[in-house]
């Protein structure tokens, strides 16, 4: 699902973030990416979304290579990836159901199927009762569930989550991780960036740590 081979990357006039980083993830895996603040977790997720490109090496996600991707393939790649952020990035002028529907709307899914799929997905996440609320009326945990529903409604092959529990209390955080695990069991590959790994103890996750621009196994619970 993910092959990152020997990538180097640095921001303009900045120190190198990665120098020869490698990463492999098989379909259906649940990877947790950890590291101190500024270690490059978010940058790696942006490289996987091909929002930015490596100076050297290659990123390959779901068959799309950073070496020969064009704008048309980029659109196709983004439609096969679901993304979740710490700050949710919900659109405040839209209701939660409209936010969730947006993923399908941009791909041109007909209105007929839209409502049904939105309600079904929101039901699966357990937020069907929030369909007519605006994001500003929701708690942090509820907002993140809406963001998850929006990320998975298009049935992505890969789900990227950048500090999805960063602004939530421990109980809400456990709920979100449980939900992501359930999605992962359904077959979706999950790559989650988090500065804390305490939430992942005792479960079947592969945890990798970014240190000095390279990845190393932090702990492998599942074997």
């Amino acid at each position: 699902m993910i092959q990152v081979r020997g990538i180097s990357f640095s921001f303009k006039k900045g120190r190198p973030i990665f120098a020869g980083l490698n990463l492999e993830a098989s379909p259906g895996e649940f990877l947790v990416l950890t590291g101190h603040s500024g270690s490059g977790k978010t940058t790696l997720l942006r490289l996987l979304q091909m929002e930015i490109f490596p100076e050297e090496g290659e990123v390959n996600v779901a068959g799309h290579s950073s070496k020969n991707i064009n704008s048309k393939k980029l659109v196709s790649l983004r439609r096969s990836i679901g993304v979740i952020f710490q700050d949710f990035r919900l659109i405040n002028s839209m209701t939660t159901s409209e936010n969730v529907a947006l993923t399908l709307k941009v791909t041109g899914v007909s209105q007929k199927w839209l409502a049904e799929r939105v309600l079904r997905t929101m039901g699966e996440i357990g937020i069907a009762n929030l369909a007519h609320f605006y994001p500003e009326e929701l708690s942090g945990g509820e907002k993140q569930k809406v963001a998850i529903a929006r990320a998975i409604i298009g049935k992505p092959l890969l789900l990227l989550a950048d500090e999805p529990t960063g602004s939530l209390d421990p109980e809400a955080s456990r709920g979100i991780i449980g939900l992501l695990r359930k999605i992962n069991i359904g077959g979706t590959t999950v790559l989650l960036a988090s500065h804390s790994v305490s939430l992942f103890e005792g479960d079947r996750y592969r945890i990798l740590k970014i240190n000095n621009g390279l990845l190393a196994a932090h702990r492998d619970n599942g074997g």
Partner: protein
Amino acid sequence: MAVRSKKDSLSGFWGRAVAGCSLIFSFLFLFIIAGRNVMTIADDFRKEMSIQVYFDRAISPEEIAQAQLVIRNMEGISEVKFISSEDALKFMQMEFGSSLFSELQTNPLPPSFEIKLDRDHQALKQVRKTADSLRAIPNVTEVDYAGELLGKVERLRELVIYVGLVFLGLISLAATAVVSNAAQILYFREKEKIEVMRMLGATDFYMARPLIIKGTLIGVISALIAILISLAIYLALGNEFMRIEFVPVEIILAVMGWAGLWGAYGGYSGYARGRKQRISG
């Protein structure tokens, strides 16, 4: 509440863009009216203009008939009117009073032809060419036409056309700038929404579409408002004061179409500028 206030602020924002473009297009329509007025006056002058060909007073009737035949066969001649010496004197007496001419022993006025040119031969260059041909006819003593005035009218015509083209260019740039800036500001207001859509796999066209549609509407609505403003000014000045009718429907439709196209381009350029700043920023 917050959503409503954002919508209100956006409608005010687009309202200002429409007002700006309406003002710009009103100048265009008023220029079209004024320009057409000048062109009509210039065309009328050309149409009314005639060439006077004077002959030697000793010319015989046969020679006059011969000259008339030559003139009628010349290219671009639409009307030839013979004015005998006697008719010329009668005309002068009517104009200035018969007492002025009572002392004269002989008629000093020469016979002449008053010649009018067809529409395709009314330009100064062609009038000069025709006058040269007329001078070459035997017994012609003088060829007279309002060359200097015709030259001024032609320069005025050219000026209207050149100024019109420059004006049209400036109007296009100004209208595009207004729409493009409006679209760019909207891009930044809607930046989060656009970024989310990009992340979800929206194409550039999908994201730019609302701005293109709004730009087109701004162009068309502004042109329509400008027509109403121009009509109000035209009527206030008084129809009888003007020599021509209001802007014809074909030109109104052409300007509206053109305004819509530039509006669409402005909408897309605002999106492209916003996107470029996002990438380089």
